Structure formats: structure tokens, C-alpha cells
């Protein structure tokens, strides 16, 4: 199925990019502005399609689990570095606090990383001012690790707390909503966490902020 989506999008993105690069001649400012809109919407559509393809691969059991041994500390540092451009644009205070006793993990690194990136970018997106804190912990009694992302953002009402994990959902799903995005990020995270035998929990208060916690076994049992 993926081929059917990607081939036409490849042409849309490619030709638009070539027009913007002036391959077929100079553009008027008006033409450029309109083409930039085509371009940004096509990229948005691509992001949605990639998310949908991710979900359908997980649902079909075709998303492979790649288990390796790694340090959570390095992973969090990597995530912070990758998200840095978004962090600096946001002007939020983003801190990280890592427990010293977290042992190396043996699970799917890429999936943990994807979840943490999603938590962090969501937190920044829904926090107009204040701070975002990333914390890691080791729950020795259950041999699980926790990655906690806490923000001082708009928060999520009790009624919306379950719904935001559904496909294509944001708390505000109206067509004029303030925040863009396909609303697939958490739906994917929930499934990825499930593949790692983990869970995602949410604690939030409207107007005060949200705290997302990923809890996964230190060592994944499957595969």
C-alpha cells in the first residue's frame, strides 16, 4: 500500500521543490508564496501518511522489533539535541534530570526514542510559557524504567485524557483548532509502548500542565 501513496507524493513534492528552486525560471513573489503553501501542505500530508503507514504496519504485526542494549542517558541526550531547534524557538526552559541508578536497557531503542521525541515535542507545542522537564527513573521493584516529560502547558481535561490516545485526535478536534498536527502521535506512541510491553500514563490539570510517563520493562521479553 505504501508505494501507492508515496509515488504520487514524490512527484508533488519533487516538482514543487524544483519550481521553488527556479529550475523552470524565476517566480513572482506571489507565485512563490503560493508554491510554498503547496509545499508545506504536501509535507504535512506526507507526515500524516507516514504516521498512518506506521500504524498499519504495527496493526498488521509487520513492524519489526529491533532489540539492542543501550544507555537511557545517551538516548535522552540524543533526543534533546535533535529537538534543540524547536526548543530554542520556543523560549521555554527545558531541563533534564537523569537518575544515576538507571541500568542499561535491552529493548528497541528506536521505538523508545520515537516515544520520547513525541512526548517532548508535544510538551513544547502545548506549553505557551514556562518549562518542560524530562526525567528518567529506575523502578527497581518491577525492573522497569520510566521516562517522564512534565510541562507547565495548557493541560488536558479529564474528559479528553483517554481520547487523545485515539487515532486522529487532539483534545480540540474542531476544524479551527489552534494546534496543528494529524493527532496521530500519541496513538502511535501507545502502540509502540505496547510492543515493548510498556504503558503510557498521563497526569494533567487544565491550565497547570501535563505529565506523560512512559514505563517499560528494562528488558523486553519478546523477540
Amino acid at each position: 500500500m505504501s508505494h501507492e501513496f508515496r509515488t504520487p507524493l514524490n512527484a508533488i513534492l519533487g516538482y514543487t521543490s524544483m519550481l521553488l528552486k527556479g529550475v523552470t525560471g524565476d517566480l513572482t513573489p506571489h507565485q512563490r508564496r503560493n508554491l510554498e503553501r503547496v509545499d508545506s501542505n504536501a509535507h504535512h500530508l506526507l507526515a500524516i501518511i507516514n504516521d498512518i503507514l506506521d500504524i498499519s504496519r504495527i496493526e498488521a504485526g509487520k513492524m519489526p522489533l529491533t532489540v539492542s542494549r543501550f544507555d537511557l542517558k545517551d538516548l535522552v541526550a540524543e533526543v534533546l539535541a535533535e529537538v534543540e531547534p524547536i526548543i530554542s524557538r520556543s523560549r521555554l526552559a527545558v531541563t533534564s534530570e537523569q537518575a544515576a541508578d538507571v541500568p542499561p536497557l535491552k529493548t528497541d531503542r528506536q521505538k523508545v526514542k520515537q516515544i520520547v521525541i513525541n512526548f517532548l515535542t508535544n510538551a513544547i507545542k502545548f506549553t505557551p510559557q514556562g518549562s518542560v522537564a524530562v526525567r528518567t527513573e529506575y523502578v527497581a521493584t518491577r525492573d522497569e524504567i520510566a521516562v517522564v516529560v512534565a510541562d507547565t502547558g495548557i493541560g488536558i481535561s479529564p474528559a479528553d485524557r483517554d481520547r487523545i490516545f485515539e487515532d486522529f485526535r487532539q483534545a480540540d478536534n474542531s476544524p479551527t483548532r489552534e494546534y496543528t498536527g494529524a493527532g496521530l502521535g500519541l496513538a502511535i506512541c501507545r502502540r509502540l509502548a505496547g510492543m515493548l510491553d510498556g504503558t503510557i500514563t498521563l497526569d494533567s490539570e487544565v491550565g497547570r500542565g501535563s505529565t506523560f510517563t512512559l514505563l517499560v520493562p528494562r528488558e523486553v521479553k519478546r523477540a
Partner: protein
Amino acid sequence: MKQRRAQPALDANDPPTASKAVLVLIVDDFADNREMYSQFLEFSGFRVAEAQNGHEALEKAFALRPDLIVMDLSLPGLDGWEATRRLKADDRTRTTPVIALTGHALAGHSKGAMDAGCDAFITKPCLPERLLEEIKSMLKGRPDSPERGR
């Protein structure tokens, strides 16, 4: 052939001459994508040949001896994997770099492409400038192709 505009992308120290520019063979059954990459590579100073399927790819590769081949994997008839295997088994094209291009992001596709002898693997969507980067980096180490086709 199609109407194309003159190539402005080469710098003054490296004037474009048809015989000198690097020749890239683009194999894709979907004309819109094939011509998109052709246009952009010609704009960037390359010479380009096109093929629509695996058989045509082999014919043109043996006849024109391109410096590099961009191969879509899902082709009608003789597919990109098999075409690449045959190219890599023939003395005339054994050392010609092949960049595989596919709309399938599955891990098996990439491994299959490498097993067939492809030198690089790119998943669509692939913007023309991304393909250009990949082509440049593939040609970089080659003694017979120093920094041409900028």
C-alpha cells in the same frame, strides 16, 4: 525529446560540454518521477538518459555506459532487483554505481536491493536535491569523475 532549458548550474571554471558531463541513467516506469529527476539533473549539469523498464535499462546501460544508474525497483517485466543483478554480473557495467529508489520503506526491500548489488538505497519520497546529493557522494571517490556535474 522533451523541451529543456539550458544548464546554468556549472561554474565558469568548468564549462559544460556534452562529452564531459557525467551521464546518469534514470530507470523508472512512472514518467512523472523519471522526468522530474531528469529535469533536475540536467539543470544541475548532468547528461541524462532514461529507461522505463528493466530490459530497456540493460540495453541503454550496455550501449551508453552511464557513469551511474538510478534504479526504481518496482518495474514491469524485468524488475529493478533483477536488472541490477544482471548489470553487476556483466563486465561492461560491473563497476557502475547503482542507486536503488523505491516507494516501499520495508526493511526487506533495502536488504534485497543490497543483495542484488545496489550501491545505495533511497526511499521515496526523495526530493530531486536529495538524489543529487547521493549521486555526488557516490561519484566522489571515483578517480575518473572528479567533482564534475556540480
